[in-house]
């Protein structure tokens, strides 16, 4: 059931620009606190640069740890935006309206954060200059041009550029509102950014087509990005448990699972922070909850395939990895927590309408999913490496150092900080989408009941 809230255009402008036009004290406190956390991480990173990668817990044979886990996690979160805006736009789901922009912004911010981690992981990031320009040629070292690791930057840059342009195009009409409402230098800046938008029927029509066309074009990119991240693992033969054909769709759907959950978390926090109860309503959480049930179940199906066919192969490394995950402390504990938080607690709960419409329960369950999904990435990468070969010269394991923990924790602070900064400059809910939704509202009288209806454009 849709709840109908009646608002004028003026009121929508006032409400949704609250983040840009008002300056509450909590915002400054939050930004200050987060900035301190990020600065601390900057210090930790500096220390790591100075001392070398030895200050991390990386050790033979586990050479990929928290940084790569966190990279995969944030790329996963970045799948939220496009999933939400594209699929819901293409399927003309009405409840997408307040959700799209925040989701897209989350995409961009998460992707930028993700990109930092492989750079940190290199230990000496400035040397990337040597890799990009023909360092190897000069010293007779030959790179593997066909390595899957080369695909990663191409996919992530494509996705980042596409998502940013997508946000920008949808932002133009709202920038015009900001231009009309602000004064002084701000007016100048918004004026330039809004490109002289006036809202003629032609412009609106193109805006509508843009939403659909760009959605259709970005969806295939979105699928490719996490597939390619998964192929960083899947192409290798050195780590037996990574070499599975299911990796690509398993990563993509897992990314959607964690990404959409992250959108739920962000939406609820925004609802509290900016008092957007009239815009982000239980029906929107309900819609996201239903979507998550489908996504989560599909993800679980792929998880089963991955797990089962690892055992089916009966290769020693695969079987010993499953043995590690199920029977050995602390891996079995993490494995249990991962399954419980990513699937067995939230999905059955979301089957109930009451849960999907409860703000607080949705907040808690969506956070649970992301705890689980972070662990999932960790449990793919690290145990796989500890059991990568039947015989190895070191049976080392991995224990994250304080430096890694600080950097990972700060990545969450960084994402929150960036979203808060964005909210100071641009509206996080598209104004024009709300107004359009209002125009398209209708009611149909059937018998004795007024049924909420929607006007459909071709």
């Amino acid at each position, binding site marked *: 059931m849709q709840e109908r809230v009646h608002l004028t255009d003026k009121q929508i402008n006032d409400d949704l620009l609250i983040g840009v036009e008002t300056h509450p004290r909590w915002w400054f406190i939050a930004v200050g606190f987060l900035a301190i956390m990020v600065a601390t991480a900057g210090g930790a990173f500096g220390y790591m640069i100075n001392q070398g990668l030895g200050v991390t817990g990386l050790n033979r044979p586990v050479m990929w740890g928290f940084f790569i886990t966190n990279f995969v996690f944030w790329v996963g979160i970045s799948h939220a935006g496009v999933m939400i805006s594209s699929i819901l736009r293409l399927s003309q789901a009405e409840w997408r309206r307040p959700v799209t922009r925040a989701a897209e912004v989350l995409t961009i911010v998460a992707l930028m954060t993700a990109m930092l981690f492989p750079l940190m992981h290199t230990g000496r990031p400035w040397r990337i200059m040597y890799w990009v320009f023909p360092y190897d040629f000069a010293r007779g070292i030959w790179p593997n041009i066909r390595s899957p690791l080369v695909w990663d930057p191409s996919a992530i840059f494509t996705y980042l550029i596409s998502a940013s342009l997508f946000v920008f195009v949808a932002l133009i009409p709202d920038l015009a509102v900001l231009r009309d409402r602000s004064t002084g230098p701000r007016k100048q800046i918004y004026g330039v950014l809004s490109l002289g938008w006036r809202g003629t029927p032609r412009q609106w029509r193109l805006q509508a087509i843009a939403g659909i066309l760009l959605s259709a074009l970005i969806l295939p990119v979105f699928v490719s990005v996490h597939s390619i991240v998964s192929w960083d693992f899947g192409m*290798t033969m050195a780590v037996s448990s990574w070499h*599975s*054909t299911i990796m690509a769709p398993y990563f993509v759907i897992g990314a959607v699972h964690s990404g959409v959950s992250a959108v739920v978390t962000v939406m609820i926090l925004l609802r509290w922070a900016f008092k957007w109860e009239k815009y982000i309503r239980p029906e929107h959480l309900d819609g996201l909850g239903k979507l998550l049930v489908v996504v989560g179940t599909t993800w679980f199906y792929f998880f089963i*395939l991955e797990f089962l*066919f690892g055992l089916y192969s009966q290769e020693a490394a695969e079987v010993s990895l499953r043995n590690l995950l199920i029977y050995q402390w602390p891996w079995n504990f993490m494995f249990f927590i991962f399954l419980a938080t990513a699937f067995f607690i939230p999905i059955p709960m979301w089957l109930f309408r009451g849960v999907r419409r409860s703000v607080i329960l949705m907040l808690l369950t969506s956070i649970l999913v992301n705890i689980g999904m972070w662990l999932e990435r960790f449990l793919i990468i690290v145990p796989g490496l500890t059991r990568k070969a039947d015989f190895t010269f070191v049976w080392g394991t991995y224990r994250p150092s304080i430096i890694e923990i600080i950097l990972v924790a700060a990545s969450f602070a960084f994402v929150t900080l960036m979203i808060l900064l964005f909210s100071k400059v641009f509206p996080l809910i598209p104004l024009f989408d709300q107004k359009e939704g209002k125009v398209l509202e209708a009611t*149909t009288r*059937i018998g004795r009941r007024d049924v909420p209806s*929607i006007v459909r454009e071709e």
Partner: protein
Amino acid sequence: MSRVRQQELHSLLELPRPTSQEINDDILGPTVTIGPQFKTAVGGLGIIVALGVAGFILKAADGFDDRTNWGYYAAVFAFLFTTCQGALLVSITMRMAKTHWRRPLARVSELFAIVGFFNLLVFLPLLWTIPIADERQSIWFEWPWGAPRVMDALAMIFLVINGLALLWASSIPDLALYGKRYGGTRGAIARFLSTGWNGTPIQWKILKAGQGILGGLYWVFLIGVHFMLSSDFAMSMVPGWVDAIFPAFQALSGLQSAVATTMVALYLVRRFGRHDQYIYMEPFWALSKILLGLTLLWFYFWFAGFITFWYGRKPIEINVLQLLMIGPYRVAFYLAIFLTFVVPFLILMWNWVRRTPGGPTLASAVILVGTFMDKIRLYVGAYSFTDQELTDAFHHESAFVDEVLPATGPLIPSFFQTNWPDGSDILVIAGGLAMPFFIYLLATKFIPVISIWETKEGYLLSGVKTVLRRRYLVLAKPD
């Protein structure tokens, strides 16, 4: 109301709004009358189906020990399963998503449940062509009780019962109407099946909840059966082939061909069933967009599997690529890639093509041919190993698993030789492909091929509203 060809009419906005009585007449009329065209079609198809049965008898006379003899039979079964038994998902999913455009196609897709029942009969003999799970790699590991035969049979039976139950549940109101208006044997059957339905609010509520539950279960069963079939009848029949994405790829291929099947059936019902005023353009338009997405995903799933093997380059991976893609079944494989992905993609990518009824139908027909080719390369290929080779692989003594073998040249191993269809295979293929048409045509005379109650509900929940200066379609969303 006047009968107009709705060729150009796109949605409920432009359609004339018939009364309830007119809808009953228009839809039930063609259901009870049997014309000469119908008789010719059923007769002709009946003969082909009978030839197919003869082909089966020829095969059965040779026994079940030589597995290569059953490869094409398995491919035909897998094709029918993928297309016809998947078709129900279209109406299930679109009903769950509460789309309005599903109404004209809901029953068209659900009627395939009856074809599913006959496909179960095709399936049962296949159980004797696969070995039990002992002493070979299998998803059943050490499972007792004659795995995988018993499990696969049970899963398939549950699926078929589930499908029939769903068809029944969604046609009760229409059967009640049918039974009230017509006598004779068919009227009596309809009265019996409608179990005294009279459409009280509580009955509607239970009916809709029942459809939801049966639909959800059908999804679960169908994915489950896809999993079992692709692992028990294909993957585990090739020594050492480990491909975690394969069951999911087959399930996805099932979704793609389900949509294609529904589209072709919808087109045929519209063209020959005299129902063109209830089947307007929007279902084609909406389905074709989904079909385009699924076609892209088909390629994605295939590529995800392929690139992992291509990069891995273990001997077994090279051999599997040789067997199924570049070796004896390369013709079927290239056709599959072209017809399930390249050609439909090139057709469906154009907006104006998707807006016609012919374009998406053509793409769908092409996809169905491609899917059949895909089943041939997979199942005929998988059926070319002996039980001994499977056991050898289990004990790590298989050349197929441990060495890169030649797929061409003078020393081709036996499983790398192309198994072309023989006489009985051709009979089975012809009969198998005619079977769904035959059964479906007969079924349309017992159950209205357009869902009457859903059509009426559609008219009730849609209207026309003028926003400022133009008329638009308004769709009500009651829950």
